[in-house]
């Protein structure tokens, strides 16, 4: 197990390094010079070429790309994400505030997706072919195929425009004002959770159906156990394996979705930070946010793998 852990950890680090390099190179290929954009955005017209060069030197943009990458990597390793080119704020401090917001919404959505998805999946599998199974299957398909922004629009139309019960946008942290926070996060969490709910439901349904045919489940039934005991003790334990593996994908889905959701509901999280910095070609911010988001995905996948190896005795660590 020890060597397996180390190998997976090294793989994860390698993936993060490759991603950071890809993102770094992509950002350098962007059209437009950030220094020129900075000058034009700050409305300073009397900038001489010498002053521009000095500024370029100050921001470290005049060095070869390899040197820039290594220097940036070293800084990231020390937890220093640099400063925004456009607005001169400390990226680390900005991310610290925003990561909490994205995590609050993302975690809630993940938890809801897991609980609701597993429950619906079990119900569908046990009542296979019945009305409830058909209804949930249709809903799950819609959840997977409807664009999240469209679901958001429908929710806004219903809850904001027609029923007037929820606020249109904004976000408050729960420990600042719990009631307000709850009201503001209902729609974002719902929209984010929809994909995970649908995926988890489908996966649970099919893996429970598979397990229901196993001999040990038939034995459990023939022993005269009631439905609750069979499902909870014998079916669920074995059917949950594939759902554990799915959780890495879910997180990737949630983090990707945060970009759309945070833009629609004007939430000050990582996703909206990314779109904003992307539109203004703010290299360091885009790099930092992308690499952090990917690192979260990679590390959680690692966690899932370890968890899986730990709960499934059949896995060999060779």
């Amino acid at each position, binding site marked *: 197990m020890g060597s397996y852990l180390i190998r997976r950890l090294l*793989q994860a680090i*390698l*993936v*993060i390094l*490759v*991603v950071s390099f*890809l*993102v770094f190179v*992509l*950002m350098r*290929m*962007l*059209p437009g010079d950030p220094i020129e954009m900075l000058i034009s955005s700050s409305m300073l017209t009397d900038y001489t070429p010498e002053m521009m060069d000095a500024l370029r030197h100050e921001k470290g943009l005049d060095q070869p790309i390899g040197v820039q990458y290594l220097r940036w990597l070293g800084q990231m390793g020390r937890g220093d994400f640099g400063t925004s080119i456009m607005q001169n704020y400390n990226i680390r401090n900005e991310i610290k505030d925003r990561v909490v917001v994205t995590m609050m919404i993302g975690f809630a959505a993940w938890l809801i997706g897991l609980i609701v998805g597993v429950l619906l999946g079990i119900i569908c599998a046990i009542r296979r072919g019945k009305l409830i199974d058909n209804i949930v299957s249709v809903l799950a*398909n*819609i959840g*997977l*195929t*409807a*664009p*999240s*922004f*469209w679901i958001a*629009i*429908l929710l*806004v*139309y219903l809850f904001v*425009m027609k029923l007037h019960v929820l606020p249109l946008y904004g976000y408050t942290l729960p420990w600042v004002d719990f009631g307000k926070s709850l009201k503001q996060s209902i729609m974002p969490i719902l929209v984010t959770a929809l994909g995970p709910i649908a995926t988890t439901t489908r996966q649970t349904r099919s893996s429970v159906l598979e397990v229901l045919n196993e001999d040990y489940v038939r034995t459990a039934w023939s022993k005269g156990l009631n439905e609750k005991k069979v499902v909870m003790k014998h079916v669920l334990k074995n059917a949950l394996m594939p759902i554990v593996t799915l959780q890495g994908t879910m997180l*990737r*889905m949630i*983090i*990707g*979705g945060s*970009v*759309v959701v945070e*833009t629609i509901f004007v939430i000050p999280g990582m996703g909206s930070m*990314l*779109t904003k910095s*992307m*539109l203004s*070609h703010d290299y360091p911010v*885009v790099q930092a946010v*992308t690499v952090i*988001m*990917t690192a979260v*995905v*990679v590390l959680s*996948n690692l966690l899932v793998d370890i968890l899986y190896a730990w709960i499934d005795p059949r896995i060999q660590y060779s």
Partner: protein
Amino acid sequence: MNDTSSIMAVDVDGQLREFRVLDEELLPPVNEFKRFWRVFFKRKVVLICFVVVLLFVFAAFFAKWVAPYDPNEADYYSVMTQPSSTHLLGTDTLGRDLLSRIIYGTQIALEVGLITVIISAAIGTVIGLVAGYATGAVQAIIMRITDAIMAIPSLILQLLISQVVGHGTFGVVVAISLTLFPGYIRLICGQVQSVKQNDYVQAERCMGASRSRIMFKHILPNCVSPLIVQMTMMMGVAILSEASLSFLGLGITPPTPAWGSMCYDGYQYLMTNPLLSIAPGLAIMLLVLSFNMVGDGLRDALDPRLRGSLN
């Protein structure tokens, strides 16, 4: 020798013996094509969705005749009208007919979907074949890069790439293709690794066949079924991605009638004219859902493991 019998070689105690058998004693030949259609259309949902896809394709091809108005023709005398007999879904802020814009939007959606699916499948299949056939360092490098690309949430990678390549159809196509092709690499690589263990591949190699011959003549045909299923599923994903990018204003930009940007434009007028943003979104969902269901049906019909259960 008469026509109704054939020679069959049967393994008896380790020795091959030839027997003459009457053809009636053999299993009747299965018409693969018929069997495919029977399984494919077994579920009514799949049939309906297949028809929906055909309708969308028809609308895209014949948009000129199907759409009642020009999608970009502004009519300032009928701005933001509600649905009526002249404008079935009403008009937008510039007086453009919403239904016509949605019909023309089908062209964009299908175009982006089809091109991205073909490009990503082509790149992914070739790299996947190489990765699956190779061993050691080459495979490890390819698969680690694939892992890395797949670890970045796809929308974020698409945003990055479309920023580099530029907005508009070309940028969107490149961005989506580059995020979808790693999926094909994994699929094909896995497939190749299982197929290349087969005896006929080993035999071919012993006879000195070249690598490319083995790859394209023996291994690739075995990958066709999962490839077709994956491509159909990815149509939906590609259309959804294009819509999200366009919605964020970083994909296909107005005045081109892309469903995603239409949703965004309509969102500002949700109070007065909800159809402006709800109708294009419904079109996206319907098309993506249909492609997914057709992909499901194809999987049932093409997957050899499912053949028995659904026959």
